[in-house]
């Protein structure tokens, strides 16, 4: 799922007539002051990061005057909220909250449903998972029939929304569903949907995520990497995404864990098969090594795709080793991985003699794949160890081998980890 920031989501909601507070997104304190002046009332200044619970983490603050808005924006911009750097803040009118509701639309992907589900609750402003079930009402939408205005009214009525606010609340519910549908969302949520003391309804906050497979339909959203991630894509993530973007033959997932490696113990990590690959990460972590990136090539990718993945992994300055970890018996034809890895190592290792590489590959065509790896790397100047099925569950052993090879590599280069 490709996430949108709150300010982006609100712009989509606005298209579908869900009222949003007056405001603008800014990236400098001076702009924050200008927007606060334009709003002409006390404002909320909200860090635009992909994290829930921003308020409790200090990412949402208030200002009564434009000058205060500038000061507060200056505090927030550049700070970190839940380990995410704040680069933009949304400056918008502060709402006088009378009541908070919740509206959400998700896909129920279970075999017997496979349809959108609209949820409404009178308990907004908190995680919907913590709301008692009797305070949540929901409707599974028949996509051929659609979601009608009266469906939204019925949802609100079931939880006794006062009649005076039914039209506005139901319009917001319908607006969210239409946003969900038109922008091919996987999830869309307004939380809280705010009823103000003067009886108006506003989307106080929202979370919207677009289905990865539909991102190409919405170039206007400017999503550079159509994939769920905790943080915005790095420069290298964007380059790596090109391997995957137009080529659906197998997967090539690459995500940088650190954009700038400071210090030692970082390994370029190349897993095969997402779940199993995590085992390798755990093993490395247990011996004090860290992954500079997480990568997964699986689903029988082409050798060319695997080659490109390795090239991207080796492009990270500061890594001290490369681990290829297929910590499971794979059904994919592993000889394609072997060919891709060998081609990349043939290019990379002559430039960094002695570089540690631990390669584990097993499953379909394992014998041939191991032969390719052995033959293809036998004359290369790296510290290369190759393992097969007999070590598939030996994550700790493989991690320790990597640690040992790194120690040798450091010694050879005169690097003392204590320095």
């Amino acid at each position, binding site marked *: 799922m490709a996430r949108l920031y709150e300010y982006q989501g609100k712009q989509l909601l606005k298209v579908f007539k869900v009222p949003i507070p007056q405001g603008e997104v800014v990236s400098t304190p001076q702009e924050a002051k200008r927007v606060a002046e334009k709003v002409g009332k006390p404002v909320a200044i909200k860090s635009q990061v992909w994290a829930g619970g921003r308020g409790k983490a200090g990412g949402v603050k208030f200002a009564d005057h434009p000058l205060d808005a500038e000061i507060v924006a200056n505090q927030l911009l550049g700070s970190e909220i839940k380990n995410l750097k704040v680069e933009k803040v949304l400056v918008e009118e502060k709402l006088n909250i009378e009541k908070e509701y919740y509206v959400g639309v998700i896909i129920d992907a279970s075999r017997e449903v496979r349809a959108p589900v609209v949820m409404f609750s009178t308990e907004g402003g908190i995680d919907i998972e913590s709301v008692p079930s009797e305070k949540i009402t929901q409707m599974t939408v028949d996509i051929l029939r659609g979601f009608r205005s009266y469906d939204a009214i019925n949802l609100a009525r079931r939880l006794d929304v006062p009649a005076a606010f039914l039209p506005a609340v139901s319009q917001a519910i319908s607006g969210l569903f239409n946003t969900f549908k038109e922008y091919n969302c996987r999830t869309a949520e307004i939380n809280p949907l705010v009823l103000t003391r003067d009886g108006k309804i506003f989307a106080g906050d929202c979370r919207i995520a677009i289905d990865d497979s539909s991102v190409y339909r919405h170039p206007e959203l400017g999503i550079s990497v159509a994939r769920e991630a905790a943080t915005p894509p790095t420069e290298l993530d964007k380059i790596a995404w090109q391997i995957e973007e137009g080529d659906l033959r197998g997967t090539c997932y690459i995500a940088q864990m650190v954009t700038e490696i400071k210090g030692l113990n970082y390994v370029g990590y190349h897993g095969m098969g997402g779940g199993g690959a995590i085992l390798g990460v755990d093993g490395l972590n247990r011996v004090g090594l860290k992954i500079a990136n997480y990568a997964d090539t699986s689903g029988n990718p082409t050798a060319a795709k695997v080659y490109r993945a390795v090239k991207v992994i080796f492009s*990270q300055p500061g890594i001290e080793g490369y681990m290829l970890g297929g910590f499971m018996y794979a059904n994919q034809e592993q000889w394609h991985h072997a060919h891709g890895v060998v081609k990349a190592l043939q290019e990379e290792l002559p430039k960094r003699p002695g570089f540690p590489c631990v390669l584990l590959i097993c499953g379909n065509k394992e014998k041939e794949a191991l032969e390719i790896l052995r033959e293809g790397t036998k004359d290369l100047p790296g510290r290369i160890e190759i393992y097969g099925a007999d070590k598939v569950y030996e994550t700790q052993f493989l991690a320790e081998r990597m640690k040992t090879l790194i120690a040798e590599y450091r010694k050879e280069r005169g690097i003392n980890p204590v320095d």
Partner: protein
Amino acid sequence: MHFEEQTIKVVIDESKCVGCKTQACVAGCKLYDRGILILKDGMPALGGDAAFARRVGTECLACEYECWFRGNKAITIEAPIPGLDEYRRKHGVL
């Protein structure tokens, strides 16, 4: 000769193929790919037109590998990643 598959370009220096006794690229192509390389007059040749190579080739890289280790190092496969060379220069990676 050269031909393109979906995302790669295969370049074969035919002057090096003269005297090759193994033609391992063709055997490798048959084993790991869909046999788009065939033997014609003792030399590797594409078994169809450019569209055929693009449609049928599976980018297995095997012809290059086989030629390295059992042939005359006549094959080079280009599999570029836009922006990566610039990124490496910028970050001081060789």
